[in-house]
């Protein structure tokens, strides 16, 4: 097996097109296990972690750009990113995993329980990719096609995650539960981003995403539509919960039952909405 450390994206693309069965590797915290278990048997590994343009969190005219090879610990320690994404990154695995694992790897691995996936969907993030045929911009919610399946074409690289200015306003939340406290895989996670119209006390914008319940992280569009323009009374929140539970259809698997997932998703949404309301009143 060949292992390369390109220093530019262009070089990485070149190496990939020259190989018959290449794989990009970042932290390797997912991929090395998949190789060990024979899920993938690449002949060439192209390491993305020495490519400067794929690393770091930068503020741009458009908003904030996170290089795909930025580690989860950098995301977790960021002072500029919205809190839902920081919380999501903070709750991935252990310190060792976060020091190696990258946000791009978390996204491209496309596990339904990936903890940065619901935050980027709630934040309306744009995923910028490059391939020999050029650049693409894909809304995060359209990126995931199934467990471990994304819209990326062979040899296409995820370059950066862009969070636009409009989503840097407002408040955002992330909730997760697993079997135990830390180092645990999400049985359910939920991300919420919301802007309140202060004088009116109504929800002006809201985005909700639920993870680990379906083959892909789900954006809860009906719930969002239901709550937009509403005052956040307890009753409205409760009815919002009911809409949410009707639009997600969790599964039962080795990690949790359908009914537990529903109960906790409802709890998380109610909690996050109340915290959002308290925030806006404060």
């Amino acid at each position, binding site marked *: 097996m060949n292992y390369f450390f390109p220093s530019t994206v262009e070089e990485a693309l070149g190496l990939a097109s020259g190989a018959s069965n290449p794989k990009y590797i970042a932290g390797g915290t997912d991929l090395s296990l998949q190789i060990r278990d*024979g899920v993938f048997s690449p002949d060439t590994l192209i390491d993305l972690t020495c490519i400067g343009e794929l690393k770091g969190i930068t503020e741009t005219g458009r908003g904030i750009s996170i290089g795909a090879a930025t580690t989860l610990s950098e995301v977790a320690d960021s002072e500029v990113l919205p809190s839902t994404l920081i919380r999501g990154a903070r709750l991935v695995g252990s310190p060792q995993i976060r020091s190696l694992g990258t946000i791009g790897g978390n996204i491209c691995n496309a596990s339904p329980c990936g903890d940065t996936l619901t935050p980027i969907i709630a934040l309306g993030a744009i995923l910028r990719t490059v391939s020999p045929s050029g650049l693409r911009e894909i809304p995060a919610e359209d990126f995931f096609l199934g467990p471990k399946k994304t819209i990326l074409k062979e040899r296409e690289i995820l370059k950066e995650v862009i969070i636009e200015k409009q989503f840097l306003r407002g408040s955002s939340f992330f909730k997760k*539960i*697993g*079997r*135990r*406290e*830390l*180092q*645990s*895989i999400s*049985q359910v996670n939920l991300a919420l981003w919301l802007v309140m119209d202060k004088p009116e006390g109504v929800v002006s914008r809201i985005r909700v995403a639920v993870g680990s319940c379906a083959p892909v992280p789900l954006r809860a569009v009906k719930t969002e539509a239901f709550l937009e323009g509403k005052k956040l009374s307890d009753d409205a929140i409760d009815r919002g919960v009911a809409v949410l539970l009707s639009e997600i259809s969790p599964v039962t698997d*080795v*990690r*949790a*039952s359908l*009914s*537990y997932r529903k*109960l*906790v998703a409802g*709890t998380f949404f*109610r*909690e996050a909405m109340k915290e959002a309301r308290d925030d806006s009143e404060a």
Partner: protein
Amino acid sequence: MAGKKSTIIGKAQKKIDGIELVTGRARFTADLRFPQMVYGYARRAGIPAGKIKRIDKEHALGIPGVLDVITASDLPGPNLIGILPPFDQPLLAEEEVRYAGESIALVVAETRDIAKRASLSIVAEIEPLEPVLTVDEALKPEARKIHPHGNITFSRKLIKGDVEKGFERADIVVENTYETSFQEHAYLETEAVCVVPHGDGRITVYASCQSPFHIRGHIAVNLNVPASRVKVIQAYTGGSFGGKDDVATEMGCLAAIAAIRLNRAVMIVHDREESIIGSNLRHASRIHYKTGATKEGKIIAREVKILLDGGAYASESPFVTMKTLIHAAGPYNIENVFVESTAVYTNKTYCGAFRGFGVPQVTFASESQMDELASELEMDPLELRLKNALKAGDATATGQVFRKSVGLVKTIQVIDGKRKHVQSKKLQDEERWLYGTGFSCLLQGISNGAEGIDVVGASVQVSQDGSVLVGVGLSDMGQGSRTVFAQVAAEVLGVSMERVTVKQVDTESVHDSGPTIASRSTTVGGMAVLKAAQEVKNSLVKMAALMFNTREEKVVLKDGFASLYEDDSARIPLDKVATAAYWNGFPLMNLAFSKAPDANYDHQTHQGDIYIAYNFGTHMMRIRIDRYTGKVEVLKHIAAHDLGKAINPQGVEGQVEGASLMGFGLAHLEEVLYDRGIIQNPNFADYAVPGIKERLPTETVIIEDYNPTGPFGAKGIGEPPVAGAAAAFANAVADATGIRFLRLPITREVILEALRGKQ
């Protein structure tokens, strides 16, 4: 001799092997390298039951780097392992496959990777049989027999008094059925062995294990060589908890056979998945309890029926069955007891020894019953326990009477004294949090008891420089027994801990002392060290008396000197005494034995004297539950144990905290999930062992009720807290929710669903 002034016994000591372990200098089996070493990897059956039609090695043998593929027909010996009768387990399945994780072939290759890949390329034709997957199916008369002798591994009854009569007199009877699930040992270091052949027909086996002599015996038989040609060295062992016994013999035999065939060193190291599917688990259980009491709260009858799912092979099921039988009545003085316990074969991973040995399962059920009874009686749970607690002079369930060292009442009183303070503390947000407190009492027999012979041999040797070398045939797998042995020798010989070295266990230099189980190291092993050290001390004292020109009674060994009782300043350094003893021909080495008294025991009714002592304990757990997610926070955990004498209080704390956390895992987190005989979560992503955040806020309370059968009065503590913490957790959840959970683990999910059902 131990005296009040001891600076060694009863004082917190650092583990003597602590530094090398935490700095990474200690080399575990998988770290070892030998010239031309090669790797073995087993092919597993992959289905829970079937007839082996054909195993085709040709393709695997053609893979570059593959050196050998061994199947049952290649084995030189009887292809049989097992800790106890009935010895029923093959090294490699021959005709029939009995569990999915069973090894059917071993591939040996230049690298571990090649061996693993090649193992998957073996073509195995196995004709599936309908698997027997539950205890109920296995017990049906028409069930397919997993072994020729049927599906019952072992079944016994304990009969004390007359339960029928007892229940007739009872004012109140509570009755329920409880279940516990399989638990994995989950040691950090997976199983590993390495076998090095020598040119002269001898072999050396390095193993992560807890019973080196078992491995030696099995290798000798399966290789058809004298045991004296097999040397087993216990490498540093990163946890075992009962788990590195059967499987270590399996791996040791296979590696030895491969090493002889190839004349090369062979290493076998398990993946985490193999460690879960291919080595023994804790028995899952279904336990029916019926408890009868007077309206004053005196328990007068207890009837218990226990079914243990033992998986495909016997392993230590017979011992575990007996332990459940003997402990099912709990630490209470009950006139009439009837217990029936049965281990059953199923087509699942075999079950065997696991810290607590059946006691956690019955204690959870028994202590749930105690709380149910207390609530029927409208009595305080601790008061009910106190009222029935065993005291010195009372008869246990087997009718054994201990005149000394029955400290249960003191453990209850300590907890009672502390509970007010703990229970009064509430935190904010009452609406969200449900608070609860759970108690449990337990006992755990120390030593092998009437289940088996209990002999430990220990050697103590003093060199001419006055330093001490101790050798005991029991393994330290992290529990700190080497440190305790060093303390005992240091105390007797009056030297500092730094002057004592404890041998690594190897079968050529220590006496066969049986398996390291049953919380027996400190008690039985420590006693052997004590005796051996005393013999050597006699030589030194004799010599010193000659040198002082005085009588032996006047000489004392302390602080590295022989000195006079009356006058401390008159003293001779121990190296001078030892050297003189050597030149005068006084023996400076001794091999001594500690043997538990022959058990006077009726194996029909299970009445009689069985153990040399019991550890007694009371636990309290204060928790709160998030009613919206089912999340549980343990706010306080107090574990009070009567352990006779804490030789190393720091070691005791380590054991209490670690064992309690394992009990908490059993009660709240851990469950091996099967689907049609295949384990669904053979990894730590989906099998949730406690993490750092789950570390319990444990306060260890040491009660010392002197035990005449242990060194300096000590009794073991390695296993007992598992049962205490698991049972206290279940009772705390019941107290907080008002719902009695009858099955472990009580996970977040189980709690939330039950709360929701109650609404």
